[in-house]
């Protein structure tokens, strides 16, 4: 009798806890499954059809969409463009972010204020940033330097687009670098000074190895953002100037599904894009893991 009384509450407590846990997880999980996981799984069969957006007629075509995508110069061009953008974006955001972080990593009134202000562009929507910069390139930059707006020159358009994005994200990278720099123990530098190391040696032997985790965060984050680039191109060049000069993967997909009414074909491109994203994220995280970072 006594044993039963003692075990009953414990049993029901564990069960109750299990039930409460399930209740806690259910809303988020259900919504997530419905809006992300299920559509993702649906997308795979859709990519095997010749779905036309307007009339909803679709026929199973097997791997034909994938086949013609892999043979499509435009699709490859969009991948190339996206990579080009991602390289500019990651490189310059990190260089600027790290440079500024080194300049203002110590806390002072001026440094804290400029930190706040330099991060500010990140808060502005990509779309607004793109519109503002489009005007600025044409009405301020171009007359000031006597050169055409980069958005109108084929060889520079992607660089111009990247500049807008870099302006927006450098502040983000800067914050992560500042956090990392502040975490480097001052004693290391002092010890190095005692041993007669110069500033360059200190930077490459102490600072760089200590902030590798920050590199890792910034590179993987910007890689994921950069490969999805969409709004900024839509708002500035819309793929031009000229044919597909700045067309990105995301735009290729959007244009095919909605603009050209080739939903099955566009969906196949979306599946390929996801694979590319997954593969690259894996490679990058593996690279940093080999450098001893867990990120």
């Amino acid at each position, binding site marked *: 009798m006594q044993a039963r009384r003692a075990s009953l509450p414990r049993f029901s407590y564990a069960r109750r806890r299990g039930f409460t*846990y399930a209740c*806690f997880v259910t809303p988020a999980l259900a919504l997530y499954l419905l809006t992300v996981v299920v*559509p993702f799984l649906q997308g795979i069969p859709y990519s095997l059809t010749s779905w036309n957006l307007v009339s909803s007629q679709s026929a199973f075509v097997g791997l034909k969409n994938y086949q013609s995508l892999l043979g499509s110069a435009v699709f490859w061009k969009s991948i190339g463009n996206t990579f080009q953008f991602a390289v500019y974006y990651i490189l310059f955001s990190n260089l600027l972010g790290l440079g500024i972080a080194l300049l203002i990593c110590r806390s002072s009134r001026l440094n804290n204020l400029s930190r706040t202000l330099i991060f500010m562009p990140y808060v502005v*929507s990509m779309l607004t*940033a793109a519109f503002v910069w489009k005007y600025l390139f044409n009405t301020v930059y171009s007359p000031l330097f006597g050169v055409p707006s980069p958005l109108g020159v084929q060889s520079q358009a992607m660089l111009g687009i990247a500049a807008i994005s870099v302006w927006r994200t450098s502040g983000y990278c800067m914050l992560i670098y500042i956090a990392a720099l502040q975490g480097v123990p001052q004693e290391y530098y002092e010890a190095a000074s005692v041993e007669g190391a110069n500033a360059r040696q200190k930077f490459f032997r102490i600072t760089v190895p200590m902030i590798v985790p920050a590199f890792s965060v910034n590179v993987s984050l910007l890689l994921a953002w950069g490969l999805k680039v969409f709004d900024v191109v*839509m708002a500035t060049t819309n793929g031009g100037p000229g044919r597909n000069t700045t067309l990105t993967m*995301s735009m290729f997909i959007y244009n095919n599904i909605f603009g050209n009414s080739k939903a099955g074909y566009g969906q196949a491109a979306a599946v390929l894009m996801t694979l590319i994203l997954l593969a690259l994220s894996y490679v990058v995280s593996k690279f940093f893991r080999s450098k001893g970072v867990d990120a």
Partner: protein
Amino acid sequence: MKGSLPKRPGMAARRRLFGALRIFAVVAVTLLFISPLYISLIYSLKTPAEMGTGTPLALPRSFYLGNFRDVIVNNGDFRTGFVNSLITTAAIVLALTVITPMASYVLARSRRRVYNIIYYVFLMGILIPFQCIMFPTYVNLRAVGLMNSLSGFVIVRTGFQIGICALIITDFVRTVPTELEEAAGIDGASLFTTFWRVVYPLMKPINVTMLVLNTLFSWNDFYVSVTILQSPQNRTLPLAQFVYRSESGVDVNLAFAFFTLSMLPVLILYLFSQRYIVGGIMSGAVKG
């Protein structure tokens, strides 16, 4: 030898010079970064007539508020967009602030396999680009009649944000000690009460950070809304802006007034809560 170094006469002067150069560099870089925002503001404070004269970058002669008035009073698209953005952002942020901490708490505390699997499902999900689920989302919303509706947008935008939020908050909860909840449990409080009375308040720093960041993401969203919302009465601010600029024959000052007004709410939010955003990003908690 070490002690004699600073005493060399040239050294102090060089240091002062470096200090001055550093301050100059900091100021220059900062101004460069905020100059586009400055230009947006002054463009929207100038009359069209003033644009043609003199340097476009100079401060406006008088603070002309006519452009703002024109956008607010005469531009129905702006007003509709503004109201829709407010409603949807509030709904999305509220939903995320309630349901993700609940889920994250369980993911952090329970050692059961099923929750571990769920954690990885969330983790895989954040790697899926929206482009990949864009068309299926369109098909599903169409089937249930939620295409072109604000509620459809709220549901999809919230769902798409859950994965990353849940992961960040879970990582945070793992750092929160369990003693307090255990004490509450011994006192006989139900788990439900314990969570809301004891744990949720402890999660405040991360919750506020996420609240601010989610506000930014929803307010600035373009790629989800452009898929779901088409009719003018359902457009959010970025969509209204997207339609507004191109062919409609707007003059530059009005366009910039429109841009400035759409940036203003998030800039104000940022300046008031920058401690949380900056703190959140610097603590390394926020990765997306």
